[in-house]
């Protein structure tokens, strides 16, 4: 099994072993969820255990549809990694900063995608650990800077990095490692467009091309042949709109992350603000990042679950984001035997999240307005069209990627909307009056 030449090796025992390794490493995830549940205050506690925020949070995290299918059906070790992330968040909420930083550093060296949320971690640690006190109005007290804390933190992070990258530095392979980690050669979008801003951009480009060809604004000979959804991971040219370079996406990402980070620095709200910033960082980089995978949406969904059980406003955003985000994961499982499973699990999770959050916030105004409800309900006909009706039509052979395109564009709308809504709610939030400086 471990012989490297043995690519595509497969047997029942291997499958069993690999699957079991995922289940085994999920133990960490379960522990992390338990720690997170402790951080959530149980003020709203009902008499029934099913109605307690902690129970709902545990169910939302452990039964998370995306994590289930990506890890246990598609096969990845995200449960373990998200366990590390949630654990570090929980540690930060419990004010055990060094542990949190250590865990996050370890996490970064497991999978570098978590670099997207690093700004939130950096600023939060700097703000609440390196500066030990705040002024009465919440702004930072510059005098309280603690050298000891900074050194400790720096040491922790450097030690982890040294352990992880050390062997490769000694062998002189660092550039190769880095080029493997950041593959800018692989094109703006994945074979299946992740539902982000660039999916909308591509779709507009396509639409303009079609319209242009029809009314003879464009010269057909100049249009490159390669189809963007041709299933191959490669660079391609936009036809009408300007093509996007990696640098442009990087700048877009940074610009979109900045306001949330500023918010974290100037309007400190403790763990809550930190969580919001983590979610915003993850979402912004998902929106504008280079070669984003659709699975990266989990990076935003899981931390947002923590917020969703605490405030009705966040719960509404959570429902939109999870439903569309999870729906956009559907193309990961494309074989017929998996179809019932993904639909059943998705229904299970969606119905649970809607009804539990609704009962949790039953005294407040409805979580979703009519427009959002209509948008979410229309996912059902979309799924029916993509999975059942479309394969029966003659377009199946000529335009096989239409369902994927529809799914990603439709989901991109919802995710963009959720992102904007969350951003607006964070930016317009009034600065809380601090009772006392810590």
């Amino acid at each position, binding site marked *: 099994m471990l012989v490297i030449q043995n690519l595509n090796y497969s047997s029942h025992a291997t499958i069993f072993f690999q699957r079991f390794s995922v289940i085994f490493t999920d133990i960490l995830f379960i522990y992390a969820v338990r720690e997170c549940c402790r951080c959530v205050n149980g003020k709203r506690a009902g008499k029934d255990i*099913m*109605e307690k925020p902690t129970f709902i949070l545990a169910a939302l995290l452990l039964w998370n549809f995306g994590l289930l299918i990506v890890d246990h059906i598609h096969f990845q070790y995200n449960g373990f990694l998200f366990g590390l992330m949630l654990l570090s968040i929980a540690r930060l909420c419990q004010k055990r900063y060094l542990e949190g930083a250590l865990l996050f550093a370890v996490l970064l060296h497991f999978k570098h995608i978590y670099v997207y949320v690093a700004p939130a971690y950096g600023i939060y640690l700097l703000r609440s650990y390196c500066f030990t006190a705040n002024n009465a109005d919440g702004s930072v007290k510059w005098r309280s800077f603690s050298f000891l804390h900074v050194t400790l933190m720096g040491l922790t992070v450097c030690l982890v990095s040294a352990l992880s990258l050390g062997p490769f530095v000694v062998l002189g392979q660092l550039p190769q490692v880095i080029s493997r980690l950041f593959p800018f050669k692989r094109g703006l979008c994945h074979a299946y467009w992740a539902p982000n801003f660039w999916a909308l951009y591509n779709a507009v480009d396509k639409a303009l091309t079609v319209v242009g060809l029809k009314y003879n604004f464009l010269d057909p000979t100049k249009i490159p042949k390669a189809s963007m959804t041709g299933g191959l991971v490669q660079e391609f040219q936009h036809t009408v709109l300007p093509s996007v370079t990696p640098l442009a996406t990087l700048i877009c990402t940074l610009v979109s992350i900045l306001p949330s980070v500023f918010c974290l620095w100037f309007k400190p709200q403790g763990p809550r603000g930190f969580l919001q910033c983590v979610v915003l960082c993850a979402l912004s980089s998902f929106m504008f990042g280079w070669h984003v995978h659709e699975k990266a949406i989990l990076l935003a969904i899981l931390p947002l679950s923590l917020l969703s059980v605490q405030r009705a406003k966040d719960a509404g955003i959570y429902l939109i984001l999870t439903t569309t985000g999870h729906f956009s994961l559907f193309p990961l499982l494309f074989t*017929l*035997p998996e179809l*019932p*499973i993904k639909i*059943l*699990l998705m*229904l*299970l999770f969606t*119905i*649970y999240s*809607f*009804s*539990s959050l609704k*009962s949790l916030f039953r005294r407040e105004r409805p979580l979703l307005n009519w427009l959002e409800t209509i948008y979410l309900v229309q996912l059902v006909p979309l799924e029916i069209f993509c999975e059942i009706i479309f394969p029966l039509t003659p377009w199946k052979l000529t335009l096989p990627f239409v369902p994927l395109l529809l799914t990603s564009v439709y989901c991109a709308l919802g995710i963009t909307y959720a992102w904007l809504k969350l951003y607006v709610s964070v930016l317009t939030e009034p600065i809380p009056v601090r009772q006392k400086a810590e």
Partner: protein
Amino acid sequence: MEKWSLMTITVLLGLTVRWTVSLGSYSGAGKPPMYGDYEAQRHWQEVTYNLPIRQWYFNTSDNNLLYWGLDYPPLTAYHSFLCAYVAKLINPDWIALHTSQGYESQPHKLFMRATVFVADLLVYIPAVILYCCCLKETSTKKKVSSALCILLYPGLILIDHGHFQYNSVSLGFALWAILCLSYDWDLLGSMAFCLALNYKQMELYHSLPFFCYLLGKCFKKGLKGKGLILLIKIAGTVVVSFAVCWLPFCTDVEQIMQVLRRLFPIDRGLFEDKVANIWCSLSVLIKIKSIVSPQTQLKLSCAVTFLSLLPTCVKLTLEPSLRGFKFALVSCALSFFLFSFQVHEKSILLVSVPVCLIINEIPFMATWFLLVSTFSMLPLLLKDGLLLAYTVTSLAFLSACVTSFSIFEKTSAEDLQLKSFSLSLKGYVSWFKSFPKIVKRLFLLSVTVMGILTLLSATMNPPERLPDLFPLAVSIISCLHFLFFLMYFNIVILWDSKSSKSQKKMS
């Protein structure tokens, strides 16, 4: 959370488990020349689609009865016919006469699994949900947890969606019948039961309680007035529904006789394979099969079965009540399973489903029984390669029951419905005080034994001289359990009286 969303989640959970189990292996996968029940069902589709009805049950050049000949009543045949029509639309190769024998492929497996899934979804699951919603004097939470436990019962899931059969159809019809009877719609109920009976003849295990309950009801109304009319109406309904089901076979007597001969194969012996009933267990000590002639075997088993049924049936006829009816269903089916002729290990499902229905009344005993019943089919499941599914679903079922009914706190004599029995024993037995503890220890002991035996039969090779050691051990242990349960259910039924209920209400 509201009731409907909880119920929806329960149903979705049940469906997810069903479909996940169905991704696994099935009976006789890749085992020529006879394959297994999967091939049997496929073969019936082939036969019913390609041959005229007159030949379905007859041995002809196109229909070799020795190769999975039809041996279920007409409704099963019609169901196969219907499935065959759909199969024809998708891929005609699946049901081509002769050439399709032993056909196996991924798409075909998907199709077959989907037919079971749809049948389950249309017949069994709605009946369970309706039954749980209509439970009287119970909170929403209790209703939902009963539904959850019933839908997660591993035995039925493993046999239908793993091993491959359509038990959920006949059991579902029986459930519909029980549901109708509990609303006093006796005619609809008897019709539903006739459908069940015409789907699988094994439903005869349930027929005596139905008969006694309805007869008792007629007696109660007075046999000279309303009771007689009701009896005539019921009899009419039964005759008509049977006639409709058998209509195509009513052309001549030989057809009917041939179908009956196929349904009740008397020459197949007292038992086959390893079954957890009394005859198979006794054969370890006495080789009944070789000592006694088949005719005497038949008479012997009939006599014993009849004797064991008698008390329950008499009681039910004299005092027909819905609660007594459900318990009688359990105990009669269990008697049939233990003592009757030609029993299959899968027939334990006929006992399990009525037990599921009383899971909210005696959660502890019901959970125990349901676990044992699944365990008794272990050799079969091992043969089909369903060990993983068996382990996971059983553990899930156990934990669902433990959390939703907190069964370990409900082991007192009163919770086990043994109050009146213990009262009548009080003078003679002094150990009754520690009763809950003893019961709990017994339960833990039995679960441990089952766990160890599962582990042994899954990992160890049996000694060469005794190749059937583990299956035999499984069936003997299950048989002992079933005898104990038979005793328990009979005690509950016989000592259940109106006076004890009124006492309960007083206190």
